[in-house]
């Protein structure tokens, strides 16, 4: 009996499940358990009863509204900028001019650069005696350094963060779009050309609708990560610009309060799910309109 059972378990019917087992256990321990614990930390008081105190404390904190505002503004500024830039890069490379492969790799370089490093890179540009001020001085445009990063110039500080994040994470969007462009069948392109679609018309009426699944993936991935923007802001702007992830970090790291840190984490998760749902719904219905 055991021998037969062992033989049965060793067949191809069970093999895939054995192979999946480690990752399923891993997902259980490192995704589902933290999710469960985060909800407990955020909603359960030390006495063990359900409470909204931590959320109330989170919302009442002076930096919460600011953090929510800046996180939201960063996301809605950076993501569209990235999609437009990445689309331009991807379409350029897709024309297949001589050397396009080589330039594609250069465009993809920031993919390997962390948010912290990107923040530091752009700090060397935007700091008081940094490269931007030096260049403007050399061109005779300014004679005193401009303070891009300071409480007095929050608008400029915000733009500095946008510049750094735009620079760092456009590559991911571009790679997704290039992969999407490569999957578009040549037949569509030929048909479009036979029917007289050229240049912008071809891009607008043929390529973009076919690229929609890739655009959707890129938008979802980028928005979720843009909502978590953290180290770029900290490296470039210190605590001048509060963001949600940064608040979770400060509550855990400085104030040693994992309840409120978890409340922030759960809040971020809820926003991420909401945004994903919005994109899936919004973009799908648009696609049906185009098909219909």
């Amino acid at each position, binding site marked *: 009996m055991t021998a037969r059972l062992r033989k049965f378990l060793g067949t191809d019917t069970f093999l895939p*499940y054995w192979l999946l087992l480690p990752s399923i256990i891993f997902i259980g321990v490192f*995704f589902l358990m933290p999710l469960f614990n985060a909800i407990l930390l955020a909603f359960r008081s030390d006495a063990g009863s359900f409470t909204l105190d931590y959320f109330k404390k989170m919302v009442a904190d002076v930096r919460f509204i600011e953090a929510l505002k800046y996180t939201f503004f960063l996301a809605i500024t950076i993501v569209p900028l990235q999609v437009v830039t990445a689309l331009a890069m991807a379409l350029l490379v897709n024309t297949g001019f001589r050397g396009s492969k080589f330039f594609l790799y*250069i465009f993809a370089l920031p993919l390997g650069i962390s948010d912290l490093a990107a923040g530091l890179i752009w700090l060397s540009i935007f700091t008081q005696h940094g490269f931007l001020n030096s260049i403007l001085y050399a061109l005779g445009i300014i004679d005193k350094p401009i303070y891009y990063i300071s409480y007095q110039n929050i608008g400029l500080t915000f733009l500095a963060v946008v510049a750094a994040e735009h620079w760092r994470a456009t590559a991911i969007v571009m790679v997704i779009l290039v992969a999407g462009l490569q999957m578009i069948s040549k037949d569509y392109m030929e048909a479009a050309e036979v029917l007289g679609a050229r240049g912008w018309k071809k891009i607008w009426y043929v390529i973009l609708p076919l690229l929609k699944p890739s655009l959707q993936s890129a938008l979802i991935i980028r928005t979720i990560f843009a909502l978590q923007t953290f180290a770029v802001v900290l490296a470039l702007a210190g605590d001048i610009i509060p963001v949600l992830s940064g608040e979770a970090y400060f509550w855990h790291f400085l104030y040693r309060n994992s309840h409120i840190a978890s409340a922030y984490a759960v809040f971020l998760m809820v926003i991420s*799910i909401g945004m994903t749902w919005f994109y899936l719904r919004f973009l799908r219905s648009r696609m049906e309109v185009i098909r219909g």
Partner: protein
Amino acid sequence: MSYPRILRRTLLYMSVLTFVLWVLVPIFFIGISSFTPRNEIYKWPKPLLPSHFSIDTMRFFLNSYGVLNSLLNSVWVALLTLAFTLAVGAPAGYAVARFYFRGREGFRMGILITRMFPTALLAVPLAVTFIRWGLYDTLIGVALIHTAMALPFAVIITTGIFMGVPKDLEEAAMTLGCSRLGAFARVALPLALPGLAAAAMFTFVISWNEVFAATILTVHNRTLPAHILTTIQASPLYFRFAGGFFMILPTLFFMFLIRRYLFHMWGGATAER
């Protein structure tokens, strides 16, 4: 060539050049900042190029308290992450690539959904759990959470890699007397090796770059990004610039090595959505 054609070519190359400069110039800036003599960083007006090439700043960075230690920690964490991720993720990738079984699509969906988890949602509760388990402030603890973050990528990438190895070859080997495991080890594995190496390097880069979880989960055993982040307000500008440059050196190198696989990876990720 006709006139409009030349005009179009010129426009094309000019736009390409603009993007190239946009990507490369900041990297160039951090590079020269790291090799500028320390006192020149604060000079005004600052010359665009340093007066001379100097390793003074780099040396200061590497000799600063805690840097060398955190650098070693980073390498260990990244290597552990790489080992864990491949050990856990590659079998799953193989299963999804080779077999049709009940729950396959569900598993793939689940893997994709895990990518939406904010890092804070994993790191904060795991810090509490790890204190109980004795994994808080250990390199293994950090490597485990990095594995969790790299796992979705690893499964997606290895699925693509094993799909690229023809099933027929393995079946032929089994017909010729190889066991299932033998066929995998002697036929599929060697063919998948370059792809797996690329996946390994990608995992290394994910771990090397990660800062939020590494900072939350450690106190003394910081990784390099965690060390730089926690000391950032107190460190001089030249320390930060040298740190930034040092952190991107290995990743740029790895990204160059695996450049051919990048599109394969993300293309696969998109196709499965």
